Structures are given as structure tokens and as C-alpha cells.
């Protein structure tokens, strides 16, 4: 077990209950997709797992400690005044690693996400897809045990999105972190995850789970298989039912 939420509830002042009760466990090296409508508490669940927010009630357990959890947001969230390599090296430098070693490891991480020769480039000089890769490299440079992706591809075009999804799976095969990623996209969820968790809003609870019975990383043409289609339909049905109930 890498991390878990047990009976977790979150109340916001003025808004009442926004999440819970929720039970969610992420196993070692597991990839979980969290899908659901906007405002169903997906991002809150993610911040709880990252330790950036505290629950009102319930228990959060994290095996992955500080420095072993990484987070990628919908936007690349890079510091514009730093080079790509400096952005990637930041988590290492903040944890006290010397600058030269940190930069060397940042270069390696950039190469691993398919970016070479951009070490000195500033975020503004990179395309959206490249900036997202830099963000991914920054998340991977600490060799995390838990990787949290908050709608990481939402702002990208379809082709870049699919390429990055494959890249994330390839990186997962290499480093085997547990991954929890939030998405609005059912197909992306089914393609990338070993388990899809569907949430509904008002307050955010888990409406159901669908296990995707196919080995990871997914073979080429997986999107055309019956397994993929059936899983996507089940997830869509769960989402639709959840939305009806919320309405």
C-alpha cells in the first residue's frame, strides 16, 4: 500500500461537505484513474494524498513520505524565470542536494521524457506539450513512489495528449511508481489505468470502480479491443448514473 484514504470527509467553511465519506487505497505500482464531473472533489482528494490539505474527519495513511510524492498539475506550472533544467532540479535543490548533482539529474530526467537540448530554454520558449514534459520530468526527478497527476493533459491537443499518455506509461514501466491521475476523459482513464474510480458530486463520493483487465503498459491497438470498449461503456454508465443521482 502506497497511500490510502479511510472514511475521509472534507468540509469547507460556507460550502459544507465537499468530499466524503471516501475510502480509497492505492497499491504499490498501481495506476488509478479518478474520473468525475467538475467539482466532485477529485482535486481535493489529490491534495489530501499529497499532504497539502487536511481532512475534516477520517484517516490518511501515506507510505510514500516527503520527497517521495510528486504532483503534476493541469498547467505545466513552471517558474518562468528559471530554465527548464533549473525547474526540474528545483525539488532536489530544495531538499538540499548540491546544485551540480541536481542539474545533472535534471538533465537525465529531461532526456527520459524525450527532451534533449532544452536544458537552458525558458518555459516561454517551449511548446505546451514540451512544457508539460518538463513538468513531468520535475515530478520524476525525485524518483517518487507516488505520482499524482491532476488533469495533466487537459490543456493539450489530442495527438500530444495520446503521445504523452504513452510516455507516462513507458516511464511507469521503467520506474513503477504508484500513479493516481485525475481526468475528465473516460477513454484516457481506461487506456492508462489498471483501475478507474468514478466519483460523483454533491458531496464528492465514489460511485463505483472498474478494473481494467489488461496488462500494463497497454499494447498498440488496445483502444480498438472489446475489453477497452466494454470498460469505457461501464465507466460512462457509472458516470451518467452518478450525475443523475447528483441532479
Amino acid at each position: 500500500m502506497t497511500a490510502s484514504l479511510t472514511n475521509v470527509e472534507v468540509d469547507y467553511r460556507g460550502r459544507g461537505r465537499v468530499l466524503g465519506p471516501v475510502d480509497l487505497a492505492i497499491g504499490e505500482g498501481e495506476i488509478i484513474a479518478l474520473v468525475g464531473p467538475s467539482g466532485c472533489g477529485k482535486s481535493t482528494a489529490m491534495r489530501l494524498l499529497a499532504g497539502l490539505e487536511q481532512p475534516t474527519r477520517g484517516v490518511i495513511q501515506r507510505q510514500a513520505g516527503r520527497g517521495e510524492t510528486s504532483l503534476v498539475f493541469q498547467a505545466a506550472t513552471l517558474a518562468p524565470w528559471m530554465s527548464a533544467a533549473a525547474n526540474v532540479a528545483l525539488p532536489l535543490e530544495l531538499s538540499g542536494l548540491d546544485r551540480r548533482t541536481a542539474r545533472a539529474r535534471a538533465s537525465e530526467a529531461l532526456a527520459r521524457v524525450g527532451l534533449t537540448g532544452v536544458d537552458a530554454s525558458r518555459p516561454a520558449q517551449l511548446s505546451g506539450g514540451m512544457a508539460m514534459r518538463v513538468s513531468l520530468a520535475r515530478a520524476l526527478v525525485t524518483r517518487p513512489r507516488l505520482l499524482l497527476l491532476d488533469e495533466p493533459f487537459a490543456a493539450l491537443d489530442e495527438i500530444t495528449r495520446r503521445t504523452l499518455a504513452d510516455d507516462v506509461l513507458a516511464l511507469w514501466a521503467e520506474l513503477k511508481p504508484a500513479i493516481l491521475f485525475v481526468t475528465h476523459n473516460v477513454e484516457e482513464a481506461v487506456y492508462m489505468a489498471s483501475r478507474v474510480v468514478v466519483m460523483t458530486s454533491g458531496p464528492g463520493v465514489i460511485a463505483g470502480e472498474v478494473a481494467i483487465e489488461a496488462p500494463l503498459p497497454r499494447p498498440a491497438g488496445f483502444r480498438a479491443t472489446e475489453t477497452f470498449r466494454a470498460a469505457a461503456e461501464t465507466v460512462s454508465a457509472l458516470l451518467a448514473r452518478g450525475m443523475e443521482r447528483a441532479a
Partner: protein
Amino acid sequence: MKSLTAIAIPLVFIALLLAIWETVCRLTGVPAYLLPPPSQIGVSLAEGWPLLLSSAWNTLFTALTALVVASLLASSLALLTALSPVIERAVQPVAVTLQVTPVIAVAPLVIIWAGLDHPERAVVVLATIVAFFPIFSGAVTGLKASDPDLERLFDLYGASRLQKLLRLRLPSAVPFLLEGHKVAAGLAVIGAVIGEFVAGSGGAQGLAWRILEAGNRLQTARMFAALFVLAVMAALLHALLQMAERRALVWWRGR
């Protein structure tokens, strides 16, 4: 070609205005102490050139000194408020009250405090007061303007308060600081002129003093000449700072 037109249009407009002005003065025979024709202002400018230039340098030097002092004071105070919410709560109301008090009303007090024998000091203090606020509020806003998701990442990576300040909040504040300094530079010139007016003595031999002096002697053409030099100086300073701001932003953003 486009930029040439952009420069030519205002120049032609100004030439037209001057021509109308000159013609009206000559046709109506309005006395020169009331409204001197541009040609006479030009003569006055040519004759008084060395004195006007040294006066302009005095005013500019006062404004720049004030800008440097204001920059140091405002940035340090903003940094203190960023470090402690208690300091921020204590300082903000005082800062706002001082800001809305017209500087001209404070001037006589400053002149007494700075010493009646040193009007130039009083002028620097007054210009500093005026230049202080845009830098201070820019810095305070800028220090709070960092990307909340980047802040979350810094928290996730266990950054200390100092690391967050040095590596996130200060760099995030750069565009706001640049803007604040640009506005402050213009205001520092205004502050210097107000200070010189209120000090009202030959101790501070700036352009405002030249205007006062010429006004007292009804040398209206000289007043206009000094005013012209003042306007050109302020415009040049503004253009210079705007260019510096643009360059600095390119460096900050990398593009």
C-alpha cells in the same frame, strides 16, 4: 515605414500647433508677459540653455536620489510585511493614510524638519515620499502574486520559509517591482518639482525654482523654456524606464 509615419504624425501636429500659436500672437499683439510667441520662447531657450541644463540636472538628480531612497525603503518594508502578517496588518493602515495625505500639505513640516538651511534635503524627502508608494504597493502585491500551484509544489517539496521567499516570492514579484519603479520615477520628478516650489528658495536650484524665479520677474518666455525642458526631461526619463522595464521583463520571462 510604419514607424516613420508614427513619428511624423505627432511632429506635424506639434508644428501645426506652434504655427497657429505664433500666428495668433502676432496678429492679436497679445503682450509677451501674458503669452509669448514660440519664437521668443525659442530665443529664451537658446540664451538660457546652460543655466536651464544645470537646473534640469539638479531636479533630475533630486528625483533619482529620491527614487533610490524610496526603492530601498519601500522594498525593505514590503519584504518585512511579507515575512510577518502582524507587521503587514500594522503597517498597511499607516501606509494608506500617508499615501492619501497630499504631499504638498506635508511639505512645510518636512522643510522645518529637514532644516531651513538645507532646502535641498527637504526636496529629496518630499520626492521620496511621493515615489515610495507605487514601489511599496507594487512590491507588496508582487510578493503575494506567486502561482498558487507553484506554492503547493514548494510546500510538497518541503521548502523552508526562506527558500520560498528567495526562490519563489521574490522572483514572482519582479514584474510588479519593475512597474512600481517606472511609475515611481515619474512621480519622483513631480515630487521634486513640488518640493522645489514649496521650499521656494534659491537653495534648491532646480527647474521649478527657475519657473518661480522667471514668474516673479514676469519673464514668461523663460517660464515656458524651463517648462519645456522639464517636460522633455520627464518624458525621456519615462521612455528610458519603459525600455528598461521591457528589457528586464524579456530577461525575466526568457522571451
